[in-house]
């Protein structure tokens, strides 16, 4: 497994900081592309050079883009250049069968949930004889499997930028208010009008305040809901980064569409949807008897009748914690 990083030139300290989590996650080699132009937001006209250099050096079976938005920008043009299929929000099945019983099928296959939620697509790199370009959803961090010593760093030479290539020039940029949502593996979505929403807000504030002992607290929100719009800052308080709580009514649909969490908890009347991979589980958390509410929507996997708002917050934190 090769990790590719396109970045402005790094010093030794930055390189170590970068490589430690990649090595711990199990990367065998770090392909490093350094150029001043890689400091901006991802754009195929810029970062595409790094991708091209990487796939030329290591012809891949799979190219995976992590959750966060780079895949939507860089994936389709890379697929076009490689003649490969692009599979957004994919998951994998890995077979441990021996070579004979695979019968020409690949050991790793790519699965993608279709929009109907009832069917999925299965892509086999061995059968289509091309690489597959895929984006994956946000997942809970597995236990570390590698060590820093094992990570080999390979600095890739890159061809000079193509002259006259049209580039959407960045005129200005600012952090998105919703930047952490696509990274959340466990996403709690609440609706503003629900009575449980304020209780969940209070429970979340209580947990974050408890976790903030000894840390510098964030400025107090002007209203309880302010801490939910758009994201309760879990990481600021030492809580799992993988957990986010958001008001679905105040989060743009496009932001939710760019989120593919492993677990979505929709509370009471919230019906907002996110992108889903085959691994995504949708929990409908209801504060009243689900028996009297009729059948849940098609995309729901689990109906959970919760007792208190604190239970919702605790569940999200437990699920988001590293196993």
């Amino acid at each position, binding site marked *: 497994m090769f990790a590719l990083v396109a970045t402005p030139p790094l010093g030794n300290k930055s390189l170590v900081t970068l490589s430690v989590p990649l090595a711990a996650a199990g990367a065998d080699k770090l392909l490093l592309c350094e150029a001043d132009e890689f400091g901006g*937001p*991802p754009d*195929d*006209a810029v970062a595409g050079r790094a991708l091209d250099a990487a796939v030329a050096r290591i012809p891949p079976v799979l190219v995976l883009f992590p959750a*966060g*938005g*780079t895949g*939507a*920008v860089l*994936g*389709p*043009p890379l*697929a*076009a250049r490689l*003649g490969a*299929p*692009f*599979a*957004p929000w994919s998951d994998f099945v890995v077979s441990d069968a021996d070579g004979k019983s695979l019968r020409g099928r690949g050991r790793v296959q790519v699965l993608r949930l*279709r*929009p109907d*939620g*009832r*069917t*999925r*697509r*299965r*892509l086999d790199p061995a059968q*289509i004889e091309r690489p597959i370009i895929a984006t994956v959803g946000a997942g809970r961090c597995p236990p570390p499997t590698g060590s820093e010593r094992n990570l080999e760093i390979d600095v890739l030479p890159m061809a000079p930028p193509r002259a006259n*290539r*049209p*580039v*959407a*020039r*960045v*005129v*200005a*940029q600012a*952090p*998105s208010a919703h*930047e*952490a949502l696509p990274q959340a593996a466990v996403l709690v979505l609440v609706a503003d009008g629900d009575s449980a929403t304020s209780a969940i807000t209070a429970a979340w504030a209580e947990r974050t305040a408890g976790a903030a002992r000894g840390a510098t607290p964030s400025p107090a929100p002007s209203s309880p809901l302010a801490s939910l719009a758009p994201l309760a800052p879990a990481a600021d308080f030492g809580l799992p980064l993988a957990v986010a709580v958001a008001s679905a009514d105040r989060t*743009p649909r*496009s*932001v939710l*569409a*760019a989120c593919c969490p492993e*677990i979505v908890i929709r509370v009471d009347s919230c019906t907002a949807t996110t992108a889903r991979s085959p691994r995504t589980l949708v*929990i409908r958390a209801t504060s009243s008897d*689900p028996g009297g509410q009729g059948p849940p929507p098609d995309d729901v*996997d*689990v*109906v*959970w009748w*919760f*007792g208190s708002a604190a239970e919702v917050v605790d*569940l999200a934190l*437990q*699920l988001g914690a590293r*196993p």
Partner: protein
Amino acid sequence: MTAPAETTGATKVAVLLHAAAVMRGPQPLHPTDVHVIRLWRQLGAEIVVLELLGASGVAPRAITESIEAGVDRAVRVVAEPLGAADAHGTGLVVERYLRTLNPDVVAFGVDADPDGLADVPGVVATRLGAAYVPGAVEIARRSGNEDAAPETAAAVPASAFEVVADRAGVLARLALPARAVVGFEAESIVKGVPPLPAEVTPRGPATPQAIRIMTLYDLGLEPTLIRRGDDLRGSVEAASRPLVTTRSAESLVTLLR
């Protein structure tokens, strides 16, 4: 009310219906496609929509609705080989058409592909050598053009537009180069131009010439260039998703960890 019929102008925009996915039956116009058409009407552009069909005899539902939404021209490329084409073959067909149209901007709705892929516009951008700009949430005339009256916006070149797009947690304001392939989100907005009245429908009755049917031969393409044995989208299988109902948070944690 009906908008003035004479609103076409120098900024020519090609809108790829269904994000250039190939349809095999009559599909309604996707709400994001409607939205994209309205955005460009606000900006006074000449709008040409393109729909790809992999079967003949399909009712022109989306095309008719796009005419009602106010586009200037509509083109349907009908070819059975498209029904077995991958994104690269489909992108080749779109590129061929766009080279004859020579639009200033190619637009699509990022969530308008019924299969959720939206992979063809990336191929189109690569083949055209154009910038690929998905995820636009705002479009505006660039500074210096903001004082222009809406009716003169039609004469604004494509390079005079800026879009705001989400780029991995950064909202970037991007200056569009010519012929950029731009993907618009469902809630994208136009800045600096008065909104269209909600009840505005067609610019005028669609003339028979407004809809054009094309085949691969019209585009100078052989079916064998497009048809594939495998459309590279994968085999379809059932996804088992049993419904679980519980009151116990502990059982949920055990189930999901």
